[in-house]
């Protein structure tokens, strides 16, 4: 598909990396409407003042505020692109900026193509003629590079998988088109049950692929490591020990860390996003409860969980509640940590040993045992790495992910039509759109491809 000109586009405007802030930019008719769907600043859309910084919360799809951010709204034509434009300044970090971008897309924006903001700026007369020449070169260089990159980036396994799906859809499109264009021929037509079975299988493959975006995310954004435990077991001290700098607030008053704190750390050349969460316990404090709710939410999306116990105290009910909570999650790897081994110990390793969950005894305050934890983390990374470089195809690119989601929707449509016994052209309507979408990853799939497929496989022509 070529560029559309009047939809709303979004992209991360700041260079990738770990800068202090990141800017996510949206441009187009719906830019402001899309933004206010996930950026809550308490101002009505019609009362937003252009060119003024507005503080608000970025709300994720589950309704959680994931960041406090600043947005600047520009009204057409007073913007870089001469369209309505929004710049959202978030805290830095790949994860957060990607997340905000994903929110923008989920709420109706389209991922901008390389150079597209500049292109619009030019098309709308913002940039003068002499600049256009240079931009044209730029766009060409960058789109070419990016198209090639996104094709090459498709490593063997993913492109193989996508090609398999694409070929299957092509086959079924051909079978449907035969029914329409060659119904007078003496050809046995495709059984609907067979079509439904195969397309449904393709859809499930796609769902798996779309889900691997999570694993792909690890490769791209790092391992999400969540530190949890009841209050005052030394979670923040552990974080500090890990990063060896005083960043989290460490106090002895239970419940100090009310919100989650994120630190990015390079361990053995692999990116870790370490999230220190509020202690989990029963509480009446409203703010504290909110922190606990978020902590649980973080656990759900964690790749690795460090569950911290206070070795100077016996195992309490609050510890068990958290253990149960973690047991419910099947995805994350867990390391149990007995902290405060500088004090008299009331918990022993064997109390916590369970299947393949490692237990590490440390003193976060005295920096004791941290190297053992480090080693355990290293082992985990090797595991994660194996997952990434294993035999599974993984989606790592937001554009691919976006396309595969659209393919999935179209397959859902095709299945619905087939199950309702609709005529082939209606099933084909969806299958061909799915093929068109896949074509944006693998290269154009044209009607000629469908016809070629028909002529090579079926005896047509009376």
């Amino acid at each position, binding site marked *: 598909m*070529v560029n559309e000109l009047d939809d709303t586009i979004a992209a991360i405007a700041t260079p990738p990396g770990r800068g202090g802030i990141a800017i996510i930019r949206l441009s187009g008719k719906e830019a402001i409407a899309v933004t206010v769907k996930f950026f809550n600043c308490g101002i009505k859309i019609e009362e937003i003042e252009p060119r003024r910084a507005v503080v608000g919360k970025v709300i994720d799809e589950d309704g959680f505020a994931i960041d406090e951010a600043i947005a600047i709204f520009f009204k057409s034509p007073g913007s870089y692109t001469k369209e309505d434009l929004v710049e959202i300044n978030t805290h830095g970090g790949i994860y957060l900026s990607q997340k905000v971008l994903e929110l923008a897309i989920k709420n109706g924006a389209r991922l901008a193509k390389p150079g597209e903001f500049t292109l619009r700026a030019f098309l709308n007369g913002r940039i003068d003629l002499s600049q256009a020449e240079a931009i044209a*070169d730029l766009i060409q260089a960058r789109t070419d590079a990016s198209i090639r990159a996104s094709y090459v980036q498709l490593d063997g396994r993913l492109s193989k998988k996508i090609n398999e799906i694409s070929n299957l859809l092509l086959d079924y499109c051909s079978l449907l088109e035969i029914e329409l264009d060659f119904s007078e021929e003496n050809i046995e037509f495709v059984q609907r049950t067979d079509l439904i079975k195969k397309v449904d299988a393709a859809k499930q493959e796609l769902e798996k692929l779309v889900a691997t975006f999570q694993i792909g995310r690890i490769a791209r954004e790092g391992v999400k490591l969540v530190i949890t435990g009841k209050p005052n077991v030394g979670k923040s001290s552990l974080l500090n020990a890990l990063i060896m700098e005083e960043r989290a607030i460490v106090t002895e008053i239970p419940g100090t860390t009310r919100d989650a704190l994120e630190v990015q750390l390079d361990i053995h050349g692999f990116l870790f996003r370490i999230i220190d969460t509020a202690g989990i316990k029963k509480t009446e404090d409203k703010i504290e409860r909110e922190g606990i709710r978020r902590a649980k939410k973080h656990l759900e999306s964690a790749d690795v969980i460090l569950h911290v116990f206070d070795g100077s105290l016996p195992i309490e009910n609050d510890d068990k509640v958290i253990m149960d909570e973690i047991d419910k999650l099947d995805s994350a790897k867990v390391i149990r940590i007995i902290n405060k081994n500088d004090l008299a110990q009331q918990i022993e390793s064997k109390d916590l040993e369970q299947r393949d969950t490692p237990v590490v005894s440390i003193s976060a305050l005295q920096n004791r045992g941290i190297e053992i934890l480090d080693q355990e983390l290293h082992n985990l990374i090797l595991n994660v790495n194996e997952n990434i470089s294993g035999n599974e195809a993984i989606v790592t690119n937001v554009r691919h992910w976006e396309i595969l989601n659209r393919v999935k929707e179209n397959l859902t449509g095709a299945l619905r039509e087939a199950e309702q016994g609709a005529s082939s052209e209606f099933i084909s*309507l969806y299958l061909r759109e799915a093929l068109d979408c896949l074509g944006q990853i693998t290269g154009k799939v044209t009607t000629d491809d469908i016809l070629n497929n028909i002529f090579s496989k079926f005896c047509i022509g009376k």
Partner: protein
Amino acid sequence: MMHTTDIYDVIIVGGGHAGCEAALASARMGMKTILFTMNISTIAQMSCNPAIGGLAKGHLVRELDALGGEMAKAIDDEGIQFRMLNKSKGPAVWSLRAQADRLGYSVRMRRALEGQENLEIKQAVVNSIIVESGKCCGVKIFTGTEFFCRAVILTAGTFLNGLIHIGMVSFPSGRAGEFAVAGLTEDLVKYGFEALRLKTGTPPRIDGRSVNLDKMTVQHGDPDPVPFSFQTEKIVQDQMPCYLTMTNSKTHEIINSGLDRSPLFTGKIVGIGPRYCPSIETKVIQFPEKNSHQLFLEPEGRNTTEYYLNGFATSLPEDIQASAIQSVTGMEHAKITRLGYAIEYDFFPPGQLLPTLETKRIENLFFAGQINGTSGYEEAAVQGFMAGVNAVLKVRNEPPFILHRSQAYIGVLIDDLITKEIYEPYRMFTSLAEYRLLLRQDNADLRLTEYGYKLGLVPEEYFFKVKLKRESVHQYIDELKKMRLSPDKANPILERKSSATITESESILQLLKRPNISIQDFNGIIDHPIFSSNIEEKLKKEIREQVEIEIKYEGYFQRQQEQVSRFEKLENQFIPDKMNYDQIDSLSNEAREKLKQIRPLSLGQASRIAGVSPADIAVLMVFLKRQ
């Protein structure tokens, strides 16, 4: 050198399906028109299959009819069997097909030409065109006489250097029993046109007295035949049946034994044939696992016993043709009246044309029909019509008439021709029309009659009828939206149709959206003209049909309409004639070469050229906006 003192507006070279529509359109638009044909007795001859329409082709005929063409009316008069195909599918892919009386059709079309004011017919071979300062201004015929004009339309069919093959025998011919044309291709190549070779074939004709039809499966037409033309009220003539039989392993054995004398498989034929219409020998070789293929005996006409053996196109030698056919059930004693043959002919790759079918190389010269690499009477006819109309508009210095892919199959066909590379004879398929749910044969009149009227090719009275039809459809849908039906009235009907009953009153529109519920189910119980049980008049039937289709498939149509809107955005960004692609460094080399060769008129067309990437389109867009 002799030349006529008359100066014509438009000269048409060729009297086939393209030539006839071109000549009629031109003359009907008031132009002084002359049509040259090599043989007046074979005007509008069906060279191959005695049938008009078929899947997707039926759409073309209806569109042509809505625009004011002749083909639909001619086949309505001369059809001997009518069938609506794909009736088990949705309305978008229904298509009409009719067997024709071959001679009757030819005579019927000749009568139309002879009855046409402003139109002269002349039997003569045209050997060259006359060009002055880059513009075509006449033709020279075999006697050396020159005819001058303001536009020339070339519709030469398979006649240019036509070469017929039967076994290892080959001879120059434009069609069985007719001469080929030598010299015209060479004349055009002199001006820089590129010419290539294609191949097509036709099956033998059989003497009906020599076959046993009782041993075959009879195939009748529809009991209530639907006419092609929107303006034909009813098909009144009797219909004739076709007969179905099958080849067998013995037939295939015989065919295999003749392959050493097959011009197709010994490399004698160089032109590329259509894959969708393979010869029987190709089918046998490519699909050895199939031990039987369908053969249809189609009557050649009312006044002859000859049958056309559909499914048996061949260029095998005479003895093999004869014995292979005699191995087929019911044809044990079959006698061939005319042998099957393959024909190679010159065509001009249509990338050399503008969307008006005018050549890019020489102004006022138009190409239409099989010389553009298409196959099929319908494909030829619509091109002839479009070339005729555009030649007239060019002469009159008026804006061209171009149909988009989103408007008509005709638009799809011409855009494909001028944009894609043609490797084999091109025929229409519904799968080629991206927006086929909207481009239905049932709404061709609603889509296109207004254009025909504005061109002066559709009578005002009929145009008003279509207008009334459109307005009634809209009005009725609005009315049905508002009308509700109570459970006690609706449920007996719903039960009878095994559809879920309702507990509260429901809008009729919603009920009609159910797959097995139709307007006629409510006949008599709702007080509205559309539910009248005795609708006889064709127009009223058509209105009811439209209302039903629009309601039932509304969701799908909306989805397609969205696709159309996306498509039109790019389609409406035009690329100027004089675009210098060499100046644009950022284009990829492949894209630059293709763009220079095709010279697309819009970004949309550019995006459909193989080798032009989305990145190239972005670059083009930047340059366009700068203009």
